[in-house]
């Protein structure tokens, strides 16, 4: 329950930068998610906060105190591990009590707090079980209780859901988020799962190659991605590559797109599948309307993906909602796509900021 500040945090292994100039400011009570592909530096960053990785440069402060040089056991953080990391030789209650014991609480106080924490995760009745006697979801809840019981300044979650099956993941996701909000605790979670990141966080940090690429709310990242990388990583996008001619983006296949802002040189346009309107006849109005041929219909229940070829070198994916009844477009059908106003980014560098 404290503000967490990272200041130009860098971790170098020889020539390799695991994290480079990571600066973040997490206000009290915020749920921040670090999102990125594997090897992007998100876990290194989290482990620097917990104290298991010593930064090469930069500083970390929790609640205004510089903790950069403190060993893990002198920082008041609660870490939830991907593999739960429950002590197998201790009961659930003993696991949860461990952090309190280390803080030398009295037996009575410890017992009371352990009971409270287990009730919080609805496992009060299993206090005397051993971890191996519990399901994965229950173990993860115990790990959560163990990390919360001593009131850490910051809760750290390292891919906490990736060992759970799909159904359970959804359940524990909601539970963690609700608990975090109820307790008003500052939390930082690491994940590579977009859906998890989008549904749980107050704010998201997209990382790649050890660097922070964009920080913002779900909506900010989705609606105004800062770079081609973010547009491709948060939500789905189809990309059209082209060059600017006469104020329009002209692709190799000959499509000419109106762009919202004047751009120049080689550029990439990013199109969100659900923002593309599909019609059998040319629509009365709309920007960037092109005819095309349906190449693949991917029926996914509530949603249907249409892969539409607009030119010999340009294919985009349009997503339509399955409203039942009516006929669906079939492979080979001729359709018209209204692409709307695409986001445009320089083509050379996937991390360059867009226009």
């Amino acid at each position: 329950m404290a503000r967490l500040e990272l200041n130009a945090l860098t971790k170098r292994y020889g020539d390799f930068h695991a994290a480079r100039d990571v600066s973040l400011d997490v206000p009290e009570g915020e749920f921040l998610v670090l999102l990125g592909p594997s090897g992007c530096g998100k876990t290194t960053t989290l482990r620097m906060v917990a104290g298991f990785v010593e930064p090469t440069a930069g500083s970390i402060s929790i609640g205004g105190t510089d903790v950069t040089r403190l060993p893990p056991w002198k920082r008041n953080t609660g870490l939830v591990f991907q593999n739960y990391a429950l002590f197998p030789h201790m009961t659930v209650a003993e696991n949860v009590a461990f952090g309190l014991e280390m803080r030398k609480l009295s037996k009575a106080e410890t017992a009371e707090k352990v009971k409270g924490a287990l009730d919080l995760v609805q496992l009060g009745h299993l206090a005397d079980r051993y971890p191996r006697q519990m399901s994965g979801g229950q173990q993860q809840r115990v790990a959560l209780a163990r990390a919360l019981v001593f009131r850490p300044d910051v809760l750290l979650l390292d891919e906490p859901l990736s060992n759970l099956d799909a159904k359970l993941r959804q359940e524990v996701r909601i539970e963690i988020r609700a608990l975090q909000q109820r307790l008003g605790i500052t939390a930082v979670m690491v994940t590579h799962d977009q859906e998890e990141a989008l549904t749980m966080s107050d704010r998201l940090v997209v990382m790649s190659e050890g660097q922070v690429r964009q920080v913002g709310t779900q909506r900010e990242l989705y609606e105004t991605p800062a770079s081609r990388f973010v547009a491709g990583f948060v939500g789905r996008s189809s990309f059209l590559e082209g060059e600017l001619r006469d104020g329009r983006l002209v692709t190799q296949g000959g499509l000419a797109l109106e762009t919202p802002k004047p751009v120049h040189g080689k550029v990439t346009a990013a199109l969100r599948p659900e923002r593309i309107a599909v019609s059998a006849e040319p629509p009365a109005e709309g920007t960037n309307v092109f005819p095309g041929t349906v190449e693949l219909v991917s029926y996914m229940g509530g949603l249907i993906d249409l892969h539409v070829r607009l030119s010999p070198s340009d294919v985009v994916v349009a997503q339509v909602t399955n409203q039942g009844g009516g006929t669906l477009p079939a492979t080979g059908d001729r359709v018209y796509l209204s692409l709307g106003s695409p986001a445009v980014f320089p083509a050379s560098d996937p991390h360059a900021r867009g226009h």
Partner: protein
Amino acid sequence: MSVLPDRRRLGRWALNGAAGLAFLYILIPLIFVTWLSVYAQEIPSYPPEGYSLRWYGAGIANDRFLSAFWTSTQVGVIATLIGLVVALPAALALNRYKLFLGGAISNLLLMPLIVPGIVLGFALYVFQVETEIATGLPIIGSFWGIVFGHVLLVIPWTVRLILASLAGFDRTLEEAAQNLGADRLTTFRRVTVPSILPGIVAGCLFGFVSSFGNLEVSLFLVAPGQTTLPIAILQYLEWRIDPSVAAVSVMQIAVIAVALLVTDRFVKISRVV
């Protein structure tokens, strides 16, 4: 109920038969020595003239066996403790750091298990004699000289079995403990040691019995007056063969078997050995 096809059943019986055979192979000599230990007569002839438990009494009452038993036990316990003190940090180092030649070191730690005992005993004897000549200290034949030799027998067992336990130990548990506020020593005591306890216990058990039962190394290191149990048995047999040695043997086998099974129940040795 589905019936297994005939050939599959045949294969199953053949394999089970082989397991039974291996088991019998080991069991039969033990059964015979047990049988001999309850012979009534003194001369081991066949068929026996009757049965009696009197040789067990004779074995226990034999002063030389008794004092040799105490010597063996003392040497075994002390050598095991020293072996553990050396082995625990050594195993941790081999597990954690990529030591210079780490693989070769951990293989060479196996040497005392597979170098012929007589060679090992002779090497220890030469070492102790040369050290005694060089320093003038009374090493050869001393209690601590024997213990020093037996530590060599204990180390491979303790190091290898603790290493096996460490290989299955998830080090994120140590990070979890440190995150919860435990410093390095507390983490080791409260998390690491309980997790590798099966390896520690199994290592000590095997180390102790290999010291306790050792003949070759002891032969070179004991002084005339001071004998370990295997040497006492050998000396007794040179003089006479009667069922009291069988009784002493059966008692040793029984104690070791019980220790093995009890320990296994407590720490699941079979997972690390």
